[in-house]
C-alpha cells in the first residue's frame, strides 16, 4: 500500500496529478477545493501537521522546460505536462503536510492562474498557516480568502511589488526611495 | 484560548528562597576567588578565559579564513594564471580578475601563459567562505591568517594585486602560511547510476583510495585547463 494509492483513494477525482521525486510525493488538486482536500487528508490519512505553505512562480519554469525540450528534441521525456493550448497557471501554492503517526510527508499543490489570485485560507484547519499565508501574499500577491489578518509580513505595508515573482529583479526596483518619513 | 494552568510545586528548600541563593552565592564566590588569584599572575594572560587583546592574542587555527593572499611560488612568481575560477565560484561576487597574456620574452616572470593583469578582492563584499580557495586549480588564492580588517575608508577595504601579495609576505614573515589543503578522498566513481545508491563499502574504499587522490589531482588540473579554454573562447 503506497502513499500514492492511499491519497488516490481518499481524494478520488480531486487528485488531478501526482509527481514523485526522490520519494517525495506531491499531489495537485483543484484550487477551490483546497480546504476540502486538506480536511480529508487530515481526517482520513492522518496528515495532522502542516509544515509550511508557500507559493511558487512557475512562469519561467515552463519556458525553460520548453527550451530544454526544443534543444534536446530527442531528449528523455519529462514528467511535467506539456504546455498545450492555454498556458499553465502561473502560480502554485504548495502545502507541506506531515503525518505525526506515520512520519510520512505529502505536498499538496494548487495551481493559481494570474487572473484569479484568490485562494481559500486554511487557517481554519491549522493556525500554523497564519504567517506562511501572509508571506505568500506578501511575496506573490496571492490573496487568501478567510484569513483574519492578511497584510504584508516581511516587506513594509506600502511596498508596491511582490518580490519573489520571477519578473521582479534581484536588485529591487528602488522602492526604498518612495518611503516617506513623517516627523 | 485555554492556557494550561500550571500549579507550582516547590520543595521546602526551594520554597525558602535563601538556601538555593546561598548555594549560588557560594558558587559565584568560588569563581571570584579563583579569578582574583589568577588575575595576580604575571603576564597579560591572567584569567584563563580572558584575552587582553592587543598584547595577548589567541592562537588562531592554521587554516583560518581571513583576508585573501595571492600566493607566490619558490621563484617569487604569482601562482595565479588569471583563469577566473575564483571569481565564478564566489557567492558574493567580490573578486574581479582581468586576465592578461604574457608578452613574449617575459615567460620566465610568470607561471603560465597568462597572468592576472588585475586582481581585485572587495573585502566589503567578501563573506570569507573560502570557495575561491577551493575553486583555484593552482593554489593561487588562499584565505590568510589576517583578521584585523577594520579600515577608515571603504577604498582601503578593496585589495588589489599589490595588497594581496603584501598579505602573502606578511603571513610568510609571521610563519603563518598554511600547507596546501589535502584533497578530500572521494568515493569510488560508480559506473552505473544504480550503483551510486549503494553504500560504499569500507574495504572497497580502502583499495581505491590512493589512486583516488592522484586521480582527483589530475581531474582538477584537467578541469582548470578546460576552464582556461572556456575563458579563451569567451574572450
Amino acid at each position: 500500500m503506497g502513499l500514492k494509492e492511499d491519497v488516490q483513494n481518499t481524494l478520488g477525482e480531486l487528485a488531478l496529478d501526482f509527481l514523485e521525486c526522490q520519494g517525495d510525493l506531491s499531489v495537485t488538486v483543484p484550487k477551490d477545493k483546497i480546504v476540502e482536500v486538506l480536511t480529508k487528508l487530515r481526517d482520513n490519512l492522518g496528515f495532522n501537521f502542516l509544515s509550511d505553505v508557500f507559493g511558487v512562480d512557475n512562469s519561467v519554469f515552463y519556458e525553460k522546460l520548453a527550451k530544454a525540450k526544443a534543444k534536446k528534441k530527442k531528449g528523455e521525456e519529462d514528467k511535467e505536462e506539456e504546455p498545450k493550448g492555454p498556458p499553465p497557471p502561473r502560480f502554485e501554492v504548495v502545502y507541506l503536510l506531515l503525518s505525526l503517526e506515520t512520519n510520512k510527508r505529502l505536498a499538496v499543490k494548487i495551481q493559481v492562474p494570474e487572473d484569479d489570485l484568490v485562494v481559500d485560507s486554511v487557517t481554519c484547519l491549522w493556525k500554523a498557516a497564519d504567517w506562511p499565508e501572509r508571506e505568500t501574499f506578501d511575496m506573490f500577491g496571492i490573496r487568501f480568502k478567510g484569513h483574519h489578518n492578511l497584510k504584508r509580513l516581511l516587506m513594509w505595508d506600502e511596498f508596491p511589488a511582490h518580490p519573489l515573482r520571477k519578473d521582479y529583479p534581484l536588485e529591487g526596483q528602488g522602492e526604498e526611495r518612495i518611503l516617506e518619513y513623517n516627523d | 484560548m485555554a492556557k494550561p494552568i500550571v500549579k507550582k510545586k516547590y520543595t521546602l528548600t526551594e520554597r525558602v528562597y535563601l538556601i538555593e541563593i546561598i548555594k549560588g552565592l557560594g558558587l559565584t564566590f568560588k569563581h571570584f576567588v579563583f579569578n582574583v588569584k589568577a588575575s595576580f599572575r604575571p603576564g597579560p594572560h591572567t584569567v584563563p578565559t580572558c584575552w587582553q587583546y592587543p598584547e595577548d592574542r589567541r592562537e588562531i587555527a592554521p587554516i583560518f579564513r581571513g583576508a585573501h593572499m595571492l600566493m607566490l611560488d619558490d621563484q617569487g612568481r604569482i601562482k595565479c594564471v588569471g583563469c577566473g575560477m575564483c571569481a565564478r565560484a564566489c557567492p558574493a561576487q567580490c573578486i574581479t580578475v582581468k586576465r592578461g597574456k604574457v608578452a613574449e620574452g617575459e615567460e620566465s616572470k610568470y607561471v603560465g601563459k597568462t597572468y592576472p593583469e588585475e586582481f581585485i578582492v572587495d573585502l566589503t563584499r567578501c563573506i570569507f567562505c573560502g570557495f575561491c580557495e577551493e575553486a583555484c586549480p593552482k593554489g593561487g588564492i588562499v584565505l590568510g591568517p589576517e583578521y584585523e580588517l577594520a579600515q577608515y575608508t571603504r577604498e582601503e577595504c578593496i585589495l588589489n594585486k599589490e595588497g594581496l601579495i603584501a598579505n602573502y609576505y606578511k603571513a610568510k614573515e609571521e610563519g603563518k602560511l598554511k600547507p596546501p589543503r589535502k584533497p578530500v578522498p572521494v568515493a569510488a566513481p560508480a559506473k552505473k547510476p544504480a550503483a551510486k545508491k549503494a553504500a560504499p563499502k569500507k574495504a572497497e574504499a580502502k583499495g581505491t583510495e590512493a589512486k583516488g587522490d592522484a586521480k582527483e589531482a589530475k581531474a582538477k588540473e584537467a578541469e582548470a585547463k578546460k576552464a582556461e579554454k572556456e575563458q579563451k573562447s569567451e574572450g
Partner: protein
Amino acid sequence: MEVRRPTIEDWDNPGDLVTINIGPSHPAMHGTLRVIAQTDGETIVSAEPEIGYLHRGVEKLGEHLTYHQFIPITDRLNYCSAIANNVSYEMAVEKLMGIKVPEKAQVIRMIMMELARIADHIVCIGILGVDLGAFTPFFYLFIQREEIYEIFEWYNGARLTNTFGRIGGVEADLPEDFEERWRKLLPNLKKAIDETDKLLTHNRIWMDRTIGVTAFSPEDALSWGFTGPCLRACGVKRDLRKDEPYCFYDQVDFEIPVGKHGDVFDRYIVRMIEMEESIKIIDQAIKIYKEFPPDAPLMAKVPKIIKPPVGEVYSAIEAPNGELGFWIKSDGSDKPYRIKIRPPCYMVYQAFPELVQGEMIADLIACLSSLNIIAGELDR
C-alpha cells in the same frame, strides 16, 4: 485556581490601554524584532509581533546563485548554529540529486551538528538568563561556546559562519587533535552546564519567573506548527532525529527530553537536558568515526557543476530550534528554481500573541528568549 486573563474585548474604550512599542531597538529584542503590545498596566492584553527587520531576501537570492554558492548563505539563517543549516540544505540537494553521502562524512556531519546544537542551546539559555536578570550563567556558558567555536575553527577555519560541508560530503576530515580538544572541552562544558543548573534551576526566583509562564497545550502547539524544543516542552515526543533518522542517529543511543506544560521552565529544562544528550551523542559518534579507516571517502562523486534533474523535494532535519526544512525545485539548470526554507522559529513566533496574552511585560521578554527566536532565520 483559574485565573481569568483579560482580553481586548474587556475594554469598552481601548484607549484606556497603553500601547508599548517594544523594539526594534530594545535590549531584549536583539535589534531585529518588534512587538507592539497593548498593556493594561503591566499586563499584556494583546501583542502583535512585527517581523521583517532582517529580511534579506535569502530565497530570492537563492534563485540567482548556484547550488554550491548558496551554502554560505544558509550560514546566515540561524547564525547560532550555522552548521545545522548547512547540513540541512546540503541534504536537500543531495536528496534532489540522489547522492549517497559517504558514511564517514555523515558521522562528521553528525558530530558537528551536535556541537552546533550545544552552541545554540547555550545561546538560548544564556540569553534567557540575561533577560531574566541572571547575568552570570551567560558568561559561564558562553566561555564554553567559544571553546566549541574553537573546534569549528580548527576544523575549517571559521568560527561562526562555518560554511560547513559540501554537496555530497564534507570538505575536510576531522583534524587529528579533534578528540583531544573535545576531551579537553568536555569536563568544562559539563561543569558550566552544571553550574548554570545550580544557579538557576532550583532557585525560587527563577522558578517563579519561569514555571507556568506562557504555558501552552500540546494541541495548540501542534496546530501552530511548533517543532523542536518548544514542542517537546509541551509534552509531545517528537524529534526528527528519532522519527525520521538521518546520518547515524538511528545507531546512537539518546533520550528525547519531554516537558509537561510547555512553559518557559520546561523549554529551559528541555534544552538543558538536550545539551547533555548531545554530549552523549558526540561521544558515541566519535566511537563510530574511529571505526572508519583514515582514508575512507568523505565526498561522493559529484560533478563540478551541479545540475540536478527537474523535480522538487523537501528535506528536513532536526535543527536546534526544531524542524528546519528546505524545499527545492529544480528546473535542470545549475541554479535552483525556487528554494523555500522552513525555519523552525518562524512557526513558533507566529503563536507569540497567543503565548503572551494575559501575561506581564517581564514574561513577554522571558517567553521571547525561551523560544529562541533568531531573526536571521525568522526573516530570511
